[in-house]
């Protein structure tokens, strides 16, 4: 979440799209309900499936699964035209000064004129040359000055009311014009035809949500896996970003793009890089093109002048004339974070050497995400597997193929609180255990209530949890299991002088107490001074905790496990010394505080920041990009929603923790300075989106995505249609993972065949209910919850049920090209036939909670789902596939 849970109460309109918040994040509805009751906020729900969230909606739009880009593209088109005609109803200053609307990019061909492809397509490699999407002028672009006038000159004093003429007044390659050029194809007729949403409903939603473009209104978008689990899922989210940026909803209270994370602490696990493309703190992972860390200068400081550090550290984009602020380009600090992380992992090794201790992925040709791993297990490349709180036999796509793949392993270690389908795959129904040679070891893990540590929620808030009871039997907290495993592996390598490349393991800094405590790990993640040094006037003694990541060093004098968490555990402020005495710990002679333990319930803000409750990364900032909540002079766009106030006398910000360089005030009150001797410029006029190298929110995505600078409608891998209904020749996202099929073959059998609409006429979509969690391991063993949802079921609309002769409660067989399952039919008004592109389309809702292990058993919904993935993240396309249903 760019914002946080409590902040939902500040919204005037909440659009929940691709999320079933009421069922899967029930506590969010405390704040949704509050906004509705106290502010009269409107709730819009967009989903194929009417659920307990839509039950509360003011407006519900039934969307064909997988057509979010079209739905949102239509809204962008609506907003752009409305904004052109009535700029005074929108925050045009925000759009001009805080987004790249006015920037000029290289000459483009857009998909509407290029058979569905963007510029830069290479038909041989089936990849884009993404530099084709850069700004014209590279790091020194220019801007369309007409868009930098107040209210866009009333769109140039109404030079023309004809849209084509009016838009033609802008530079042909300026972002706003390209945006319009691209999305004008998404008119109401087209959008309704593709999405199945009636035109009147589209207008109703668009009008209501567009109201949040006013300076004194805020709209929030809440999304979850309904948005992401598509072959173009990342572009769905890009669509939301564009919309929110156009409406001035980013960085403000009650706004933002709010990802409701799918499981508890999944935010924390991605922060800590349980993703194959990052190291901790969202820094790009080293790959086999990185032959060296970087350049160490004469002062011993690592710089981005070469190697890996050069590749991952962006150069600032110089602001065009007419843009008031400048780019702080926060990622320029990445070398400090990387070197400090290497020192946390291998304290006594020169980073030049320890950089090569890090595993390096192949720059291309190998996928390391879930689908890629299962493929590699199936092909015999991966021979051993540790499965920790995971259940790929039921939770990943294509369950039957995944289970077959596990049988290729030599060994597998599962750590879980109960036996799950993965731990028991060798004794699953239909197989003979003697035929499976995989050695399976189950480690009993402690449940969340039986271990201490931190957990990071969707709002980036890390909260400390205490153990309420001891784990049963031999079960241990994960941290202790990991500690024992690492110590044992280390001892094996130390004992065997002939082992291959033992250095990374033998030299690993692993000096925890016995048993290891989460508290000392939290200190390590925060970072420490390894030697005495001084930073911005703060003198550190060796061993002291680092105040925050702005003090990290690129010369090896500091360590830090994850820069975004730096400040979670450091020197207590005077207010903390007074108010949190019970939480103070002396570290290296300094009173420090583990801020994740804080439980202060006071709030001096008008918008519910509650800054003394736990701690939020980065730097306890509750709303990120918050400099976008104020105008160039530092005034909140909406005085009733103030989150930042500049105290000019004391040169500091009051309210939330400001983004980037807190001593620098509003853009118009600062001047960038240049050092007369070194010539180095200090940027003080900070543009709000500090993590982008141009400081701007991106209407135009540039080279950030693999599949285009703007979201375009493509069909899911399995679609009812043989041609893209938007009217060009590119049916699917051309860069999506395995979009051409293949790749998942075991013993010469394709595990992931593709179905066709003649055999599988209905659109299947998977989801969860509130009573169970994920593959059910934590819930299907609880009688109280099994009582509520006892059996695997699918949901079918009354019209489809009547058509194929199914009654509520019937046992049905649902099949896809990957397999079939049995379930109880819940026949409901909550699904209904849709008219899409000349076809009557039915959805079938498939629950994902069941499997053959545990107290309540049933078939896994993921038997049906395909192993194809998003073009940028490879998240599987769980949400849209073709299926058939018949009475069992």
């Amino acid at each position, binding site marked *: 979440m760019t914002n946080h849970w409590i902040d939902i109460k500040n919204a005037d309109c909440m659009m929940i799209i691709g999320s079933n918040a*009421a*069922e899967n994040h*029930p*506590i969010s*509805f*405390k704040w*949704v*309900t*509050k906004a509705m*009751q106290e502010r009269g906020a409107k709730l819009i729900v967009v989903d194929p499936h*009417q659920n*307990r*969230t*839509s*039950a*509360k909606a003011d407006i519900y739009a039934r969307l064909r699964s997988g057509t979010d880009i079209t739905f949102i593209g239509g809204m962008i088109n609506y907003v752009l035209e409305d904004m052109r005609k009535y700029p005074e109803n929108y925050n045009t200053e925000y759009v001009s000064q805080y987004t790249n609307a006015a920037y000029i990019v290289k000459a483009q061909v857009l998909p509407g004129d290029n058979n569905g492809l963007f510029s830069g397509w290479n038909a041989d490699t089936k990849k884009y040359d993404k530099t084709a999407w850069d700004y014209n002028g590279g790091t020194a672009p220019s801007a369309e000055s007409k868009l930098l006038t107040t209210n866009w000159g009333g769109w140039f004093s109404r030079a023309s009311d004809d849209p084509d003429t009016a838009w033609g007044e802008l530079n042909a390659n300026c972002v706003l014009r390209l945006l319009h050029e691209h999305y004008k194809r998404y008119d109401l007729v087209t959008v309704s035809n593709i999405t199945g949403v009636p035109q009147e409903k589209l207008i109703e939603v668009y009008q209501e949500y567009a109201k949040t473009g006013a300076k004194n209104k805020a709209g929030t978008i809440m999304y979850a896996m309904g948005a992401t689990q598509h072959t173009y899922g990342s572009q769905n989210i890009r669509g939301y970003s564009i919309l929110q940026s156009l409406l001035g909803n980013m960085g403000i209270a009650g706004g933002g793009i709010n990802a409701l994370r799918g499981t508890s602490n999944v935010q924390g696990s991605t922060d800590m890089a349980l993703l194959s493309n990052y190291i901790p703190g969202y820094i790009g992972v080293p790959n086999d093109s990185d032959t060296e860390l970087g350049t160490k200068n004469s002062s011993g400081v690592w710089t981005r002048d070469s190697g890996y550090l050069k590749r991952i550290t962006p150069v600032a984009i110089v602001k065009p004339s007419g843009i008031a602020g400048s780019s702080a380009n926060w990622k320029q600090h990445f070398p400090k974070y990387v070197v400090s992380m290497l020192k946390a992992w291998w304290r006594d090794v020169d980073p030049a050497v320890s950089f090569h201790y890090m595993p390096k992925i192949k720059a291309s040709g190998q996928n390391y995400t879930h689908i890629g791993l299962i493929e590699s297990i199936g092909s015999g490349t991966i021979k051993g597997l540790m499965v920790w709180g995971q259940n790929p036999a039921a939770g990943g796509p294509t369950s039957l193929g995944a289970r077959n793949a596990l049988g290729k392993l030599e060994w597998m270690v599962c750590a879980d609180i109960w036996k799950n389908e993965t731990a028991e795959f060798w004794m699953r129904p239909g197989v003979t255990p003697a035929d499976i040679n995989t050695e399976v070891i189950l480690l009993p893990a402690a449940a969340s209530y039986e271990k201490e540590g931190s957990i990071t929620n969707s709002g980036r808030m890390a909260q400390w949890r205490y153990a309420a009871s001891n784990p049963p039997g031999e079960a241990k907290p994960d941290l202790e299991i990991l500690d024992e495993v690492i110590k044992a592996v280390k001892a094996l390598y130390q004992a065997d002088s002939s082992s291959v490349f033992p250095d990374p393991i033998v030299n690993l800094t692993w000096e925890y107490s016995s048993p290891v405590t989460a508290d000392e790990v939290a200190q390590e993640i925060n970072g420490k001074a390894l030697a005495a040094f001084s930073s911005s006037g703060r003198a550190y003694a060796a061993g002291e905790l680092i105040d925050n990541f702005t003090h990290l060093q690129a010369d090896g004098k500091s360590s830090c496990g994850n820069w975004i968490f730096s400040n979670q555990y450091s020197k207590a402020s005077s207010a903390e010394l007074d108010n949190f005495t019970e939480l103070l710990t002396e570290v290296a002679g300094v009173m420090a505080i583990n801020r994740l333990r804080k439980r202060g319930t006071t709030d001096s803000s008008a918008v519910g920041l509650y800054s003394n409750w736990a701690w939020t990364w980065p730097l306890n900032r509750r709303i990120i990009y918050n400099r976008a909540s104020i105008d160039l002079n530092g005034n909140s766009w909406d005085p009733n929603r103030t989150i930042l106030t500049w105290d000019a006398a004391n040169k500091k910000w009051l309210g939330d923790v400001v983004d980037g360089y807190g001593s620098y005030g509003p853009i118009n009150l600062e001047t960038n300075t240049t050092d007369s001797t070194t010539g180095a410029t200090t940027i003080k006029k900070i543009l709000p989106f500090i993590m982008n190298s141009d400081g701007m929110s991106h209407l135009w995505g540039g080279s950030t995505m693999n599949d285009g600078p703007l979201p375009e409608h493509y069909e899911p891998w399995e679609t009812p249609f043989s041609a893209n209904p938007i009217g060009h020749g590119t049916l699917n996202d051309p860069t999506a993972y395995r979009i051409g099929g293949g790749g998942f073959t075991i013993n010469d059998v394709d595990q992931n065949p593709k179905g066709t609409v003649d055999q599988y006429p209905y659109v299947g979509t998977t989801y969860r*209910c*509130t*009573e169970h969690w994920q593959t059910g391991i934590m819930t299907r063993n*609880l*009688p*109280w*919850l*099994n*009582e*509520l*949802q*006892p*059996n695997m*079921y699918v949901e079918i*609309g*009354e*019209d489809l049920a009547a058509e194929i002769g199914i*009654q*509520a*409660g*019937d046992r049905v067989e649902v099949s896809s090209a990957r397999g079939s399952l049995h379930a*109880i*039919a*819940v*026949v*409901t*008004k*909550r*699904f*209904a*036939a849709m008219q899409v592109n000349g076809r009557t389309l039915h959805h079938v809702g498939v629950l994902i909670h069941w499997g053959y292990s545990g107290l309540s058993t049933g078939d896994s919904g993921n038997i049906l789902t395909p192993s194809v993935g998003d073009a940028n993240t490879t998240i599987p396309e769980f949400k849209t596939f073709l299926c058939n249903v018949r009475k069992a």
Partner: protein
Amino acid sequence: MTEKAILFDATKCMGCRGCQVACKEWNDLKGVKTANRGTIENPPDLSADTWLKMKFIETGDAQDMRWLFGRRSCMHCTESACVNVCPTKALYHHELGFVAYDQAKCSGCGYCVDACPFDIPRTSGSLVGIKHATKCILCHDRITSGNIPACVKSCPSGALKFGDRSEMLAEGKARINDIQSKYPYATLYGENELGGLHVMYVLQDSPSVYHLPENPKVPVSITVWKDIVHPIGWTLAGLAVLGLGFNYVIARRKIQVKKEGH
């Protein structure tokens, strides 16, 4: 003492059923073995092990449907049929207003089951004999020690509130006032019904849509029982035998009658 009440605001309920589970957890009620019968509403009925059950109601047609969430549990009436009919005074009015229950005094006659205009109490029992009646006791132990009922404690969206009845009533009325433009048939249920209920509902439609009686009454036969037969009855030892006979008949009937077909 000030009378207490629960206010259930159906417009804020999103049907998560945390309350249903919390009730079981606090009151040590076991999970019932159920089966999906083509609806996600389960268990099928209130029982000795289920004192609170949420109802899912789909109304309208598929293109314009509404999914409503209703609640079934003891309404804690002021004019309580169950208290009137209870021969052993196991059911009684607590000074906080709710209908309390002393299981030790319960003879298991089951009269309360038949008398309740909301069809709430259930008896735990078997074919050979009834043990005792069961129903929500408003977490008697919690609310008399300064806590709120378990169901209210668990509610994430604020649909359940607990407090002084006068405050709950005022809040319910204010809420109806706020939502009437959106829901023209919005109703505050429980202000005056049966002398005033201690569980009041803010409904976004008329009570019948939520399968609630529009005008609940204590059956006349029960008034007669309480005012005439009851005072005389316990002077006659023979009636005890008769009571046991009733007991058996009612037990049989309860088992045979399929409750709650909808």
